[in-house]
């Protein structure tokens, strides 16, 4: 049964291949069946393989497909590696991916690039599966770049609009910067270990390096560079808000549920490296903490429904990074999973709203949709509640609470991280419910002609259920104390070490966070339902701060100034190829000399004789002088 693992990435790949080759010749129904079916089958096989794997006692399972490269000891192969960590990831990828595919058949129904869309989406799923199933870092890198490509293609899916193209290009290039850092990290890892196989590296690393060894820190930081690029963390977060130019299912699948969490996966996967490099791990935590706050503030000021969600995604991944940074590995994975559910749900809901309102993105032009789109409203509300971590009933509460607690309690955590996370939670619930209230409550500002069909509603409902119950697999000590996920992950990821004598404070931390998230909701209620005029006033009196927040803290302008402009300037200046000018100079010199000497061949006989005479004088003078 486990040998079927290769089918999991192979099926979507086949789907993509068939769609690319024959997509334009077969009917839309066939396209949908192939596109959705391949991922659905992959999800089914994942469940089969997963149950077999969990019931078996092995801690990991390897499947060698073929040997890729074998040169002078450098021998990465196409090999899949299944362990609990990758199992969770492939489950989320195939399952959420399947739901999003189903949703897409309705969402993209009228689009002329229907088959192209599913081809790209299948290719993405395949790459993402390779990323998480890779046995060695080179194969991981293949998946890593593959998802980058698909992200590029899907952001720029509606290619006729130049803005989409620019957003896609930005996404690709910015993540590529991180990838390059990661590539250098791979060179160093290979140099150090002579292999890129992940299990071997993880096994050997503690023997080769002591904790805090300089090489380890550099490598960890380089890997972090890759993670930061892919997961849209500071300082490479700028591409994600723009990436919302893609269709909504794409945002849901790639830019919320799966690809952007690849960085989390990478760090969790290479956790041994980070444990050996405390400095790098601290960097992970700091980046996470700062990012979650900056992105949260930006989310508070956005008008575009999807941009709010984009900033929210950046912020939530910030939480995951923070968890990784404090050594709460499984908490990060837990939050990844729950986040995949509720954020996909929110994006799909937002997509539904946007589609039904004829591609209207500005949420201040919506309003009052509660009555008109009840199914979307309820599911969206559940997702929002989960994002805002409404206590006890939502999954988001359990996952985020876990991180908050461990940020405070972990050996590597401290109060500052905790405060940042706490304040972030407050902002999160504020901007989440700002979005909900503005979009679904108040007066109706637009007309809705039809409702979402079943193909759209069913995935929403399934995801909504998961957003509610998904959290019950991991309950805190104070409530129930269930650790299914951590137990599952325990062979791969070490459990967090708490500071001594702190366990009793858990309930206090929890209550603070509950209060803060609820007050965030109230804040949104107060500003946007009770006193709708107030936000405008505040906005005008703090226009400067608003502008900074709205533009994502000016990172775009900064990068524009220090990277893009100089590059373009340099490139334009060099367009004519200055080196070539040197050769042209030689040619011009030759030409000039030619002209000068040609003058002497004037055809005037007397000048020739004059030359003769001058020559004679010259020679005689020489003879006389010497």
């Amino acid at each position, binding site marked *: 049964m486990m040998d079927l693992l290769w089918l999991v990435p192979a099926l979507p790949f086949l789907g993509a291949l068939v769609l690319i080759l024959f997509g334009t010749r077969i009917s839309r129904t066939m396209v949908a069946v192939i596109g959705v079916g391949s991922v659905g089958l992959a999800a089914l096989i994942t469940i089969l393989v997963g149950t077999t794997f969990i019931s078996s006692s092995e801690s990991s399972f390897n499947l060698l497909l073929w040997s890729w490269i074998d040169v002078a000891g450098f021998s990465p192969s196409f090999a899949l590696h299944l362990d609990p960590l990758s199992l969770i990831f492939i489950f989320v990828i195939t399952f959420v991916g399947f739901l999003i595919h189903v949703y897409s058949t309705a969402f993209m129904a009228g689009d002329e690039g229907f088959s192209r869309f599913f081809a790209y989406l299948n290719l993405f799923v395949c790459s993402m599966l390779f990323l998480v199933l890779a046995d060695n870092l080179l194969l991981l890198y293949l998946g890593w770049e593959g998802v980058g490509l698909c992200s590029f293609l899907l952001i720029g899916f509606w290619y006729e609009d130049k803005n989409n193209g620019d957003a896609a290009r930005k996404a690709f290039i910015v993540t590529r910067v991180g990838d390059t850092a990661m590539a250098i990290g791979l060179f160093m890892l290979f140099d150090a270990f002579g292999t890129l196989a992940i299990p071997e590296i993880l096994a050997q690393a503690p023997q080769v390096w002591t904790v805090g060894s300089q090489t380890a820190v550099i490598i960890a930081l380089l890997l972090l560079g890759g993670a930061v690029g892919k997961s849209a963390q500071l300082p490479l977060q700028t591409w994600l808000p723009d990436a919302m130019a893609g269709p909504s299912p794409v945002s849901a699948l790639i830019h919320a549920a799966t690809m952007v969490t690849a960085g989390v996966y990478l760090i969790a996967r290479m956790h041994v490296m980070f444990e050996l490099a405390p400095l790098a791990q601290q960097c992970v935590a700091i980046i996470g903490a700062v990012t979650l706050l900056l992105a949260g503030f930006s989310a508070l000021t956005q008008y575009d429904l999807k941009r709010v969600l984009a900033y929210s995604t950046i912020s939530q991944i910030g939480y995951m990074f923070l968890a990784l940074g404090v050594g709460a590995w499984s908490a990060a994975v837990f939050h990844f999973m729950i986040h995949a559910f509720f954020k996909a749900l929110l994006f799909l809901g937002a997509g539904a709203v946007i589609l039904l309102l004829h591609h209207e993105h500005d949420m201040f032009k919506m309003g009052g949709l509660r009555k008109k789109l009840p199914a979307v409203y309820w599911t969206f509300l559940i997702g929002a509640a989960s994002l805002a971590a409404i206590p006890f009933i939502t999954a988001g509460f359990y996952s985020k609470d876990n991180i908050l607690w461990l940020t405070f309690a972990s050996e590597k955590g401290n109060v500052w991280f905790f405060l940042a996370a706490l304040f972030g939670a407050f902002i999160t619930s504020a901007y989440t419910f700002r979005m909900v209230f503005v979009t679904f409550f108040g007066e109706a500002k637009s007309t809705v002609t039809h409702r979402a069909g079943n193909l759209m509603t069913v995935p929403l409902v399934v995801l909504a259920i998961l957003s509610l119950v998904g959290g019950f697999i991991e309950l805190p000590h104070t409530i129930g104390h269930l650790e299914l996920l951590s137990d599952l992950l325990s062979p791969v990821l070490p459990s967090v070490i708490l500071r001594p004598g702190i366990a009793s404070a858990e309930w206090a931390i929890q209550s603070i966070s509950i209060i803060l998230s609820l007050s965030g909701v109230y804040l949104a209620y107060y500003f946007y339902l009770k006193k709708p005029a107030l936000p405008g006033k505040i906005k005008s009196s703090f226009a400067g701060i608003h502008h900074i927040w709205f533009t994502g803290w000016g990172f775009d302008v900064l990068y524009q100034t220090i990277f893009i402009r100089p590059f373009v300037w340099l490139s334009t200046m060099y367009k004519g190829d200055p080196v070539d000018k040197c050769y042209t100079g030689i040619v011009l010199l030759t030409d000039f000399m030619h002209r000068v000497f040609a003058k002497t061949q004037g055809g005037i006989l007397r000048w020739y004789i*004059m030359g003769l*005479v*001058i020559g*004679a*004088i010259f020679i*005689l*003078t020489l003879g*006389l002088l010497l």
Partner: protein
Amino acid sequence: MEVTFYIASAVAVYATIMVITRHNLIHALLYLVLSFMAVAVVFYILGAPFIAALEVIMYAGAIVVLIIFVIMMLNLKAEAVEQERKWLSRGIFIGPAVLSLILLVELLYVVTASGVSSSGYPMVDAKAVGMSLYGPYVIGVELSGILLMSGIVGAYHLGRQKKKIVHRFLEKAEE
């Protein structure tokens, strides 16, 4: 004898100056004959009577006659003299004069400073010349023969009136 030499020299120099300053070709040629004659005298004084005779026959005779023939063929008229006067402006002398002066001074210096002096030149007669011509210099004689022949052929070839062809060629070249 010395006096004869200097007189002849003076005549040669004067005649040559007149040659290069005349506007009328025929006048110049007459002076040229004079110059050659004077040089012939010098040759004689220097003990080369055979060469003196050759000088008179070849230079003063054949070559000058040849030039006169050509002048007659060209049928130059009075305006040619006018034009010659125009061409020969004073300014045109300055550059060459300076150059020539420098060269002359250098040559004179070389000649006088070499310290060669002698008196009384023995006669080297035609027989001696003939002996060495057909002795060691026989190759030179042969080559001279070839040169003269090629001169004849060249002159004949160039002198032909093949106006049309050359004209077309020139036209083509001017495109």
